[in-house]
């Protein structure tokens, strides 16, 4: 006890204040809430490696009323697939929640030959269960899709669930093109959504990371 007492005493300054080196766990992993902390809480991060899909099947509940998903350089294995967003009301056992969405894009070719702002009726949804298109990407080595999805109030059992997303995409299977894509909509269900899945419409997610944040 004598040595232990001396060790403890050394963890305090002469005025009795605990020293910084006395805290064993500098990441304070047991602390789950910090009043002075930020409002954006990283809940989960997944890295793709020739993955057929990336799913988040835990952590989506009533703890937060808004969730952010940040996509960083998601790269497809196939030529020109869509990057799709699916939701589940049974923890990920199945995906296929009815959705209605809008989709518009500003684009610019690298050669300057084409540019426009246009609504794309080929990538919106009207009460379908096939998943929502957030963007796409070319599959050449330097092409990928990055962006953000904001998903509101998924645990509500009263309201439909809105989302908005913006993606910056390199799409150059034939002509290199920058695309700024705006997708938004709602999953038309009053059941709580508790899992989400992202995948390309064909092939794998070869690389990229997806982070899920809760917004306090």
């Amino acid at each position, binding site marked *: *006890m004598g040595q*232990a*007492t*001396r*060790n*403890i*005493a*050394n*963890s305090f300054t002469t005025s009795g204040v*605990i020293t910084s*080196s*006395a*805290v*064993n*766990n500098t990441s*304070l*992993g*047991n*602390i*789950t*809430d*910090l*009043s*002075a*902390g*930020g*409002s*954006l809480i990283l809940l989960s991060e997944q890295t793709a490696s020739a993955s057929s899909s990336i799913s988040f099947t835990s952590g989506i509940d009533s703890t937060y*009323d*808004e969730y952010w998903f940040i996509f960083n350089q998601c790269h497809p294995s196939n030529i020109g697939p869509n990057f799709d967003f699916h939701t589940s009301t049974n923890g990920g056992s199945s995906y296929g929640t009815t959705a*209605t*969405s*809008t989709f*518009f894009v500003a684009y610019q070719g690298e050669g300057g030959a084409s540019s426009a*702002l*246009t*609504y794309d*009726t080929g990538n*919106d*949804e*009207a*009460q379908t269960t096939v998943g929502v298109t957030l963007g796409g990407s070319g599959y050449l080595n330097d092409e990928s899709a990055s962006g953000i999805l904001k998903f*509101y*109030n998924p645990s*509500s059992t*009263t*309201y*439909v669930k*809105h*989302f*908005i997303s913006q993606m910056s995409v390199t799409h150059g299977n034939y002509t290199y093109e920058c695309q700024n894509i*705006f*997708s*938004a*909509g*709602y999953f*038309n269900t*009053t059941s709580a959504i508790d899992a989400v899945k992202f995948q390309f419409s064909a092939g794998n997610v070869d690389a990229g990371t997806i982070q899920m944040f809760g*917004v*306090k």
Partner: protein
Amino acid sequence: MGTRITSLANNFDTTGKLKAAGINNASLSGITALPSGVAGKMTLLSTQTASSSSSLSFTSGIDSTYDAYCFKYIAVHPSNSTDAQWTFQASTDGGSSYGVAVVSTNFRAYHFENDAGASLQSRSADSEEGRSNETTYQPLGYQGGAVADENCSGELWLYNPSSTTYVKHFLSRNALVGYDSGNGGFQQDVHCAGYFNTTSAIDAIDFKFATGNIDDGTIKLYGVSTS
């Protein structure tokens, strides 16, 4: 006292370092400030929840502390049955009055649930949802429905509201379910941006539906530091 010392000792490892379990308050609620490198850049300042409310006002916390302020509205539901307009205005007198001149653009993407139509549409005319130095409430969403499961969610960013030199810019994006008598429900992605044309500091913001109450929903105010 001996028991206390033994208990204290048990909270330290054999090298004298405090164990994680030795911290009693897992939320550390007593800590209200952190160094800039540790604290987040987006700080929740206040939350208001509607309950058949005529409006929700934020009359404190909007000052020079932060460079930008973000309002997030989650599942805001109107009491009025048709053409619900989700609107906001600013005050330069702490919320005593709302009516600062606004210049704004407004456009939306929409898509009917029955797939009868979908388009990108400018709504910036004065007769629509744009403003050209008017002091009326600025619509952020419109043609909203009030069916039980319909609602509006989105965010509004207000930049440098305390400036006494510049006009005050804002940006918003909103997702809401619309209702059309011919086609029924439809998705709307509404984008509104503009500025309050004043060099007076803006210190309060008010949200409301153009008619009826805010039956339900939450609005959160965040301060965002860029330095």
